[in-house]
């Protein structure tokens, strides 16, 4: 007779294999890291540029260049660029994040030779036509108007600005910043930042030597270097700040609280990730168990830690019924105090360890995920021993270690608390 009350046997994840990149350089010394996998006949090529020359008076330069880079070259209009890329079934994406701007090409290998020259044209000869800038300004201002009606987005903006001020990490973009965008600022930024001496190429997929030669013939020459200074910031932990933006019509309030912590390069980071998981990093976390599954105050609550080049921070975020906002805050702080005052039980700790190892294994789904894992360490100057240390730390951490980290990093006297809605 089948005993359905008895859980089947299971094993903790023992080994996790990472595909490490091979390293080559183009003729002009641009480093190319390739994570190879031959399963599908496709490839992703990322051109990653450090964000540079930060100017708080012109906070949108890098963002606008990233958004408008594919909107016209000397040879091709915005529409022609898009048509050519689409014709070959390829995807051309640009992304701006706090520390980097990237241009990414996804393509089937059979079209690689046809699409690379288009990417080359964009990366070396983007013209930023005034008409495209005007359309961008108008539409971004409209998007901003919509976003400013979203409590969650407002809480993010307030929180980032409180922690990071008018830096690339915290600047609070308003409509006037768009109005002040100038074509010459965009072209200047483009020349400085999208240059071979500021570029790292990360390739993932079925990328053979012949493909490397193609890449080298396009990007290894005829690409002018730029003059740029990589952004550098430093921040100090600020004392407790309470920011409240009242929205009388709110049905829900957005809560975001947290503080500066450390980034991936710090030895405490893996331990902090474990602490974060216990607090709010997975579905069974303390915050979810209490505030969603017991109290039903919210559809979701979570905590996270974020690792930037020049800072790290931890946060707790949720949207809760406006009438229970104060209660939700009380419960959040209560859960933090419990982590500081009581040891995590053995059963819960083992669960979290197994969950995190399974999660790490599952996050290596395909060759692109392996490349993402490489990016996580490469830009912090770390090697693959980072992951070995992480795995060892997850397996070995004790309840006492977690409590020490809670005292060190969950000091609520330094927390920034943002509420948008009603409390």
């Amino acid at each position, binding site marked *: 007779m089948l005993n359905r009350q008895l859980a089947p046997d299971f094993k903790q994840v023992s080994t996790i294999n990472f595909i490490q990149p091979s390293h080559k350089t183009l003729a002009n010394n641009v480093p190319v890291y390739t994570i190879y996998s031959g399963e599908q006949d496709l490839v992703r090529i990322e051109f990653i540029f450090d964000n540079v020359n930060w100017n708080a008076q012109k906070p949108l330069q890098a963002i606008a260049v990233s958004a408008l880079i594919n909107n016209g070259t000397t040879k091709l209009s*915005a529409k022609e660029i*898009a048509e050519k890329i689409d014709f070959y079934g390829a995807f051309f994406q640009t992304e701006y994040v706090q520390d980097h701007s990237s241009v990414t090409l996804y393509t089937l290998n059979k079209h690689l030779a046809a699409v690379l020259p288009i990417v080359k044209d964009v990366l070396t000869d983007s013209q930023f036509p005034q008409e495209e800038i005007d*359309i961008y300004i108008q539409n971004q201002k409209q998007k901003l108007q919509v976003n400013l009606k979203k409590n969650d987005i407002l809480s993010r903006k307030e929180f980032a600005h409180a922690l990071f001020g008018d830096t690339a990490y915290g600047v609070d973009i308003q409509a006037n910043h768009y109005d002040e965008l100038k074509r010459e600022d965009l072209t200047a930024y483009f020349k400085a930042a999208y240059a071979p001496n500021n570029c790292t190429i990360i390739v993932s997929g079925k990328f053979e030597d012949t493909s490397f030669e193609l890449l080298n013939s396009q990007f290894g020459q005829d690409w002018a270097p730029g003059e740029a200074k990589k952004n550098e910031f430093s921040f100090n932990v600020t004392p407790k700040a309470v920011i409240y933006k009242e929205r009388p019509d*709110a049905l*829900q309030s957005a809560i975001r609280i947290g503080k500066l912590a450390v980034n991936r390069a710090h030895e405490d980071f893996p331990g902090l990730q474990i602490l974060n998981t216990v607090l709010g990093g997975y*579905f069974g976390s303390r915050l979810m168990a209490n505030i969603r599954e017991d109290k039903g*105050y919210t559809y979701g609550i979570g905590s996270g830690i974020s690792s930037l080049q020049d800072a790290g921070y931890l946060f707790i975020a949720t949207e809760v019924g406006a009438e229970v906002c104060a209660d939700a805050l009380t419960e959040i702080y209560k859960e933090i105090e419990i982590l500081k005052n009581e040891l995590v039980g053995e059963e819960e700790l083992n669960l979290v360890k197994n969950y995190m190892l399974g999660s790490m294994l*599952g996050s290596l*789904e395909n060759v692109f995920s392996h490349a993402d894992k490489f990016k996580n360490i490469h830009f912090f100057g770390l090697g693959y021993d980072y992951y070995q240390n992480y795995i060892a730390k997850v397996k070995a951490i004790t309840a006492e270690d977690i409590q020490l980290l809670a005292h060190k990093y969950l000091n609520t006297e330094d927390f920034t608390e943002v509420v948008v809605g009603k409390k």
Partner: protein
Amino acid sequence: MVDFNRFTLANGLKVLVHEDPTTPMAVLNILYDVGARDEDPEKTGFAHLFEHLMFGGSVNIPSYDEPLQRVGGENNAFTSNDITNYYITLPSENIETAFWLESDRMLSLAFSEKSLDTQRNVVSEEFKQRYLNQPYGDVWLKLRPLAYKKHAYRWATIGKELSHIENATMDDVKAFFKKHYTPQNAILVVGGNVKTEEVKKLAEKWFEPIPAGDKYERNLIQEEVQTAARQETVKAKVPLNAIYVAFKMPGRLNADYYAFDLLSDILSRGQSSRLYNSLLKEQKLFSDINAYISSSLDAGLFIVEGKLVEGVAVETAEKAIWAELEKLKTELVTTDELTKVKNKVESVLVFSEMSLLDKAMNLAYYELLGDADLLNQETKEFLKVTAADIKRIANETFRKQQSSTLYYLTEEHA
């Protein structure tokens, strides 16, 4: 190409296995053939509320999530108007835990009052977070009842109103479970680093003892042919005027489905698409413009929606949309344009095979459509579409009398 093996258990549960030895993980995906379209019009939002209750413990296992997390697994689920889909990913060596958990909740739930109380609240907060407390969040709550008068697609999966969720009782929950959560009403897909023989043994061990239950016979009222244009204006505290035009189109199994999908791509996939270039870039009428299909199993919707540039009259914007649609009715799309959208679709299908979970979900969904192998025929079906097909369906679809238009206007400009 997504390979699979297939067998059916004695109780009617269909099982598909996709072996992928390149990953150390496994996925267990189970699709129940029940969605919001199967709800009582007075108790809407129930299929989705029920999905939440599936995590509130089962007859032999008090907690669903905890034992799964303990073996390194993760799970989630979603409900649509047509289906409810649950999935687990975990290290493949612990796959039996997924069978144990998933089979026990198919056998019976714990039906705990505490779980029902909590999830009523959680879903109410979800309703607020996603539909009520967001600018334009309630569009589909308005557009569905405008476009559908008879069919159960006239309400959204979250439900018509909060009170339907707040009034759900344990008797409703039990009846819903008995009616829909039977082995014959489900499709199980196991994928990843597994072997078919091993999956078969586990399926026979954990799922086969579950009683077959009664077969649910779906008998939905179908929508009548729309014969007059519909229009509604909503005013709300939003910063920009918006317009939504919904046309009737055939259901997912219609032979023209692929042509409709390409038609929506021609109009709005990416920065080379027609609406983006004509209406946003050249005429500067919209700051945001999109066309897409609902892909529903019963007769669906082809939607064109956009946010207007400040100062543009909504009638002007609407006329411009129609001018683009009229072009598709009178002129054949060029070979290049058609090839472009076909190449894009081919690419998307190859890239989607990079995700084990996507593959497993797709196999389950295509099996529901009639045969999981349809998934592997898709590229061929897309390639068959001709310019004449596109023109023909544009003529059949883009007609005033089959349209439902919603003006979603800002109160400040009203």
